[in-house]
């Protein structure tokens, strides 16, 4: 009835090109932003921050990053965990080497380091395609994790082999280390998420994004119409790794505080983020958020339901969770290969026609 373009007159080119052409969408977007910035920080407590909001925001960044590579550029990657580890260790080395510099710059620096590593491991993608490339990215995953485990320089020769985030502040408020308040953790992640998501949305609908999608749809054809595959593939790897590196840095510095590389950034993490973008929807920024929310919420819900509600042992619940996740992935692929984002799109389409669908 009111969810439609009619009556929403565009008078300039910019207005015609905006991300949310429907007025209600714009209001919804602003309402979500308002709630995220002005409501949640005041009501959030440690449990909600640690169990849901902080991991959701961090995984959302990682999922957007991977979605750029897999969903937009079509280069299947299984090295997400390894790249997150690069972000975490780069952040750690920067934090300990330059203690006076602001943590935000460290996290951005970690992103750039990861982007460089990503480009390095992305180079073979010019020759190797499809599944062969997926396996090639496994090399990054296993090699990087091994490297951070074995070379003492990376963990500053600490006896435990772990890295621990020292306390750092933004505007006098600690955001890393044990004295961090829940809302500070949440807010710093939120700022990164909003800025990065906004960047990703605009990158993917511009020239760069279009060349990525051309490469995804058919790389030889794209080359013939003048897309430079070297440039497109490597920028996709760089941007994607930048996002994943920032997610890794936040995951280590803000969320966990102490990290053992094999445990936190193993191959399981690569698959987790991959599932997020499959369930959420390949090639969609909204899908990255939806997938991240889904995969973060599912274990929490199952745990509350089965362990808390029915008193089942935790190991059984963990196995059941594996089964449910596996089954859900299959069900999603069969019912809607394009994920939650497609369901959302269909829903909006229905809403536009409601109440007269013909």
């Amino acid at each position, binding site marked *: 009835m009111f969810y439609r373009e009619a009556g929403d007159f565009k008078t300039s080119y910019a207005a015609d090109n905006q991300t949310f052409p429907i007025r209600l969408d714009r209001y919804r977007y602003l309402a979500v932003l308002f709630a995220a910035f002005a409501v949640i920080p005041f009501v959030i407590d440690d449990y909600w921050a640690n169990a849901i909001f902080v991991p959701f925001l961090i995984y959302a960044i990682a999922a957007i990053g991977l979605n750029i590579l897999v969903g937009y550029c079509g280069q*299947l990657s299984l090295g997400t965990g390894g790249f997150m580890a690069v972000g975490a260790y780069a952040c750690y080395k920067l934090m300990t080497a330059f203690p006076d510099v602001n943590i935000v710059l460290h996290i951005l620096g970690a992103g750039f380091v990861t982007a460089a590593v990503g480009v390095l491991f992305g180079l*073979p993608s010019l*020759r*190797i*395609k*499809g*599944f*062969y490339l*997926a*396996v*090639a990215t*496994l*090399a990054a*995953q*296993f*090699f990087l*994790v*091994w490297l951070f*485990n*074995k*070379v*003492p*320089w990376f963990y500053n020769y600490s006896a435990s082999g772990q890295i621990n985030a020292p306390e750092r502040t933004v505007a006098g408020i600690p955001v890393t280390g044990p004295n961090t308040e829940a809302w500070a953790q949440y807010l710093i992640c939120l700022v990164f998420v909003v800025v990065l998501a906004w960047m990703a949305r605009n990158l993917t609908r511009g020239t760069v994004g279009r060349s990525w999608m051309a490469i995804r749809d*058919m790389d*030889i*054809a794209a080359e*013939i119409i003048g897309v430079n595959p070297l440039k497109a593939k490597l920028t996709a790897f760089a941007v994607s790794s930048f996002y994943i590196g920032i997610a890794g840095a936040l995951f280590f510095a803000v969320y966990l505080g102490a990290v053992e590389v094999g445990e936190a950034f193993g*191959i399981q993490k690569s*698959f987790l983020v*991959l*599932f997020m973008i*499959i369930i959420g929807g390949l090639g969609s920024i909204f899908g990255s958020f939806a997938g991240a929310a889904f995969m973060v919420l599912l274990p929490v819900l199952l745990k509350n339901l089965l362990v808390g509600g029915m008193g*089942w*042992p935790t*190991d*059984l619940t963990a*196995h*059941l*969770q*594996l*089964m*449910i*996740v*596996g*089954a*859900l*992935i*299959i069900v999603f*692929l*069969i019912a809607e*290969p394009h994920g939650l984002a497609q369901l959302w799109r269909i829903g909006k389409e229905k809403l536009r026609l409601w109440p007269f669908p013909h």
Partner: protein
Amino acid sequence: MTEFLYAVEVMINGLMAGVLYALVALGFVLIFKASGIFNYAQGVLALFAALTLVGLQEGQIPFAHLINAMFGTELHHFGWHLPALLAILLTVGVMILLAIAIERFILKHLVNQEPIILFMATIGLAYFLEGLGDIMWGSEIKTLDVGLPQGGSFWIEEKTAVLGGDGFYGFFIDKLDIVAALVAAVLVIGLTVFSQYSKQGRALRAVADDHQAALSVGISLRFIWVLVWSIAGFVALVAGIMWGAKSGVQFSLSLIALKALPVLMLGGFTSIPGAIVGGLIIGVGEKLFEFTVSSSWFGDAFGFTMSATENWFAYVLALIFLVFRPQGLFGEKIIERV
């Protein structure tokens, strides 16, 4: 001289490990050839088969853990021990049922989807089977004993001891590895004969060549898929028995599947001999590499010890190799058209 003999011993052991990789890789190749599906679940299939075999042999009650949690009962075992052969036959039956279920509930619905979607579906299947295996049979590490010979072969050790000087005691080779090599050889010959000379085997190759052409001459695609997943299940069972007898039936078994991926890349996704050769190259390569870098000056030069390189060597080798030959050693040449 002794150094050299040790290197040879490492190489032989690498060959034997390579045979086991090749066994897992074989299952991948079969499914990829017949249906173009990159079956990530192959390793979990091996784990599931081994778990089922142990469970049946020990007379465990399936889902005992779940039933106990739901109804507060105390179920564990039926209280019988099946002979190994019977248990193996039953497990083959279970794997066939599983193949039928996979075809019925997953593949049938995903005909004509993009390869990446099918690949993701097999990842989902891998998770599902992993959880199912744990819930059915429990997640503790189990020993698998179907009467295969174990331990070093003294005969080989004695015979080869004369090669070196006083400090050399002959090659240490696990009997189980020799059995595995023999089984792998029999399996490859059997599969080749099956696909060359039997009616079903020919149908299978026809499907591998061209789905639509195969359909048009009256080959049932669904039957072929069940068949090929059953064979892959059987190969997974063999691999599961070998790995399980070597290092116990546990979750890490499914990670071996990941090791089979670089093997495949080296050999090419579509070639059965490629899977074997790739497995051997990776097996020997990673053992020799570890042997070389961990024993010499590398540690001093870089200031840290190079150990556990087996974690990544195979992948990096495959990556470097693929840059020069993108279709693998024996893979079909990739021809791209617009």
